[in-house]
């Protein structure tokens, strides 16, 4: 404090920056921000360029092989025809390979248009069946629901719903068990082999395991179990990070804090809720953040296999479909999946920061 009062008056320019620290700070920060934004933008452009070039290359390879095949099978005249057909860009003879960026943009607008059509259709259906449904409801019958094809946007929301349920399952299994085994060393030893062995198991195998169990448990009911199966599988695949982090966080509380609890003779409940859990929260949330990322990642594979609606099955259906814009749609889905995964991670990061007494590690 003596420094500020007795500091010699600095030169005029220096004293100006002293009075305007925020301004000068901003000035120093702004070029930095512009720089990193510029670098990001440049790398994105580079990415697009590489994508475009490789798409063109693959297109040419595919086109050449097609012409060669026609040449050997049907002769030069047909080959010429095929060449002309490919050059004209006609859908019937378009080489099917990695789509270029522009095709992906086109596909994404197609998907959105498709969504608008389906939404309009749904709304019309709802209006049409409103009266009937009201009647059926009064009679206690099942309502008539829209059973048409889901749009791409619908698939996104289905996937988000599945991942949310899977995440909650992971949360409600992993956090309590993690706390309990974190508190007791014997239980930790007992659980250790279990965690070590089952943690690396592939999502596919978890799905099959869940399928075996759910199939038996839901015998006789005709409800659709695919959603349940995929949500439970997502939960089981993704809970390990939270389980391990919670138990480590609970078992490695700073000895100083425990000494405080000991000297004050805190009861076991108070000790857990006032000392151990707050101290473990940063690690628990780091675990939950990993869990969300893993859940979103395995979700796609699980939906794909479990035939449950969502982005995974969208990708798989498009692949099986093999239409001329299928590949572009798959790439659109890829970007959407990546972007949503990124958003989920950000959301978890902000939650982690707001509940934790320490600054979270970005």
């Amino acid at each position, binding site marked *: 404090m003596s420094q500020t009062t007795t500091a010699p008056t600095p030169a005029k320019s220096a004293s100006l920056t002293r009075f305007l620290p925020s301004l000068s700070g901003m000035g120093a920060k702004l070029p930095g921000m512009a720089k990193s934004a510029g670098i990001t933008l440049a790398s994105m452009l580079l990415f697009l360029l590489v994508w475009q070039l490789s798409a063109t290359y693959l297109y040419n390879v595919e086109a050449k092989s097609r012409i060669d095949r026609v040449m050997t099978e049907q002769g030069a005249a047909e080959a010429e025809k095929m060449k002309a057909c490919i050059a004209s860009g006609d859908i019937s003879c378009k080489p099917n390979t990695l789509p270029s960026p522009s095709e992906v943009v086109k596909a994404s607008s197609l998907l959105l248009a498709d969504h608008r059509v389906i939404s309009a259709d749904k709304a019309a259906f709802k209006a049409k069946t409103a009266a009937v449904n009201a009647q059926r409801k009064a009679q206690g019958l099942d309502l008539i629901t829209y059973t048409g094809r889901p749009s791409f946007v619908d698939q996104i929301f289905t996937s988000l719903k599945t991942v949310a349920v899977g995440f909650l399952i992971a949360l409600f299994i992993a956090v309590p068990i993690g706390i309990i085994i974190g508190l007791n060393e014997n239980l930790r030893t007992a659980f250790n082999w279990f965690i070590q062995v089952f943690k690396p198991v592939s999502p596919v195998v978890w799905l099959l395991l869940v399928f075996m169990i759910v199939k038996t448990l839901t015998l006789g009911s005709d409800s659709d179990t695919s959603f349940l199966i995929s949500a439970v599988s997502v939960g089981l695949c993704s809970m390990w990070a939270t389980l391990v982090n919670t138990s480590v966080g609970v078992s490695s509380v700073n000895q*100083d804090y425990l000494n405080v609890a000991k*000297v004050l*003779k*805190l009861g076991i409940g108070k000790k857990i809720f*006032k000392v151990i859990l*707050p101290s473990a929260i940063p690690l628990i949330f780091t675990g939950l953040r990993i869990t969300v990322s893993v859940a979103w990642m395995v979700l796609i594979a699980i939906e794909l296999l479990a035939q449950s609606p969502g982005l995974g099955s969208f990708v798989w259906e498009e692949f099986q479909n093999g239409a001329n814009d299928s590949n572009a749609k798959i790439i659109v889905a890829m970007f959407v999946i990546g972007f949503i995964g990124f958003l989920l991670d950000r959301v978890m990061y902000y939650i982690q920061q707001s509940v934790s007494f320490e600054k979270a590690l970005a």
Partner: protein
Amino acid sequence: MSTPIIEFRNVSKWYGEGDNKTEVLSNINLKIEEGEFLAIVGFTGSGKTTLVNMMTGLVSPSEGEVLYRGEPITGPAPERGIIFQNYSLLPWFTVYQNVALAVNEIYPDWPKDKRDEHIRKFIEMVNLTPASEKRPKELSGGMKQRTSIARVLATDPDLLLMDEPLGALDALTRGNLQEEILKIWSANRRTAVLITNDVDEGIFMADRIIPLEPGEKSGLGPEYKIELARPRNKKALNTDPHFKKVRTSILNYLVQLGEAAKLERNQDLALPDLEPIQPGTRSFGWLRRAS
């Protein structure tokens, strides 16, 4: 003579067994009387913290026994309050909540507003009212230690233990806090034990000062009574002949022991029976062959 508050009877403490056995404290006999302010000074690593932890009950002796008012200590209890060296505040609680955790635990039967008043009184006593809603991260070292002091004093301990409470603070803050602790202590004259590595601090604050021998197997040295009137004035103390005499003799005792311990260690050192490798007699031939 009344029962001492704390009594050490032939206490030894070691960690590990067999070859790894390190004896920290050896054959400690000590009586702490009601109402006195005792200081224990010693070098780092002489077992000061172990000694005070045996008084709190966080550490139990390997041999002998530690009695609290005639009863063996079996574990920590709030009536023996301790101010830790590293503050040990819970970082997710504010100053108020840290003190409240202790108060709510010790006086669960009090009505809420009485507890609140009590908590605020002690925060005020250590001059932290403006910072009562701040978390430890936002406090300076001195403010953290004040919080820790308020937390302990608010539980009204029968015995106040201080484990190098000011060790991590700068000299200025240290001096201020010494005076504040003394002021608070003299208000109700509880028994207090101060562990410190600063002889001046010990003499300034205590009625009786006992040096702890340095190195392994520490025992207690001779005790020094400090017969200085309270309240003591730090400036006047520097020229006080009694202060100077006690200070010199304690320092001499510690330094002399320190030298002796060093000499002893030097004699024990056996040189390793090794022959130096002569240059050129060995080479990494296999490396050269491989390449």
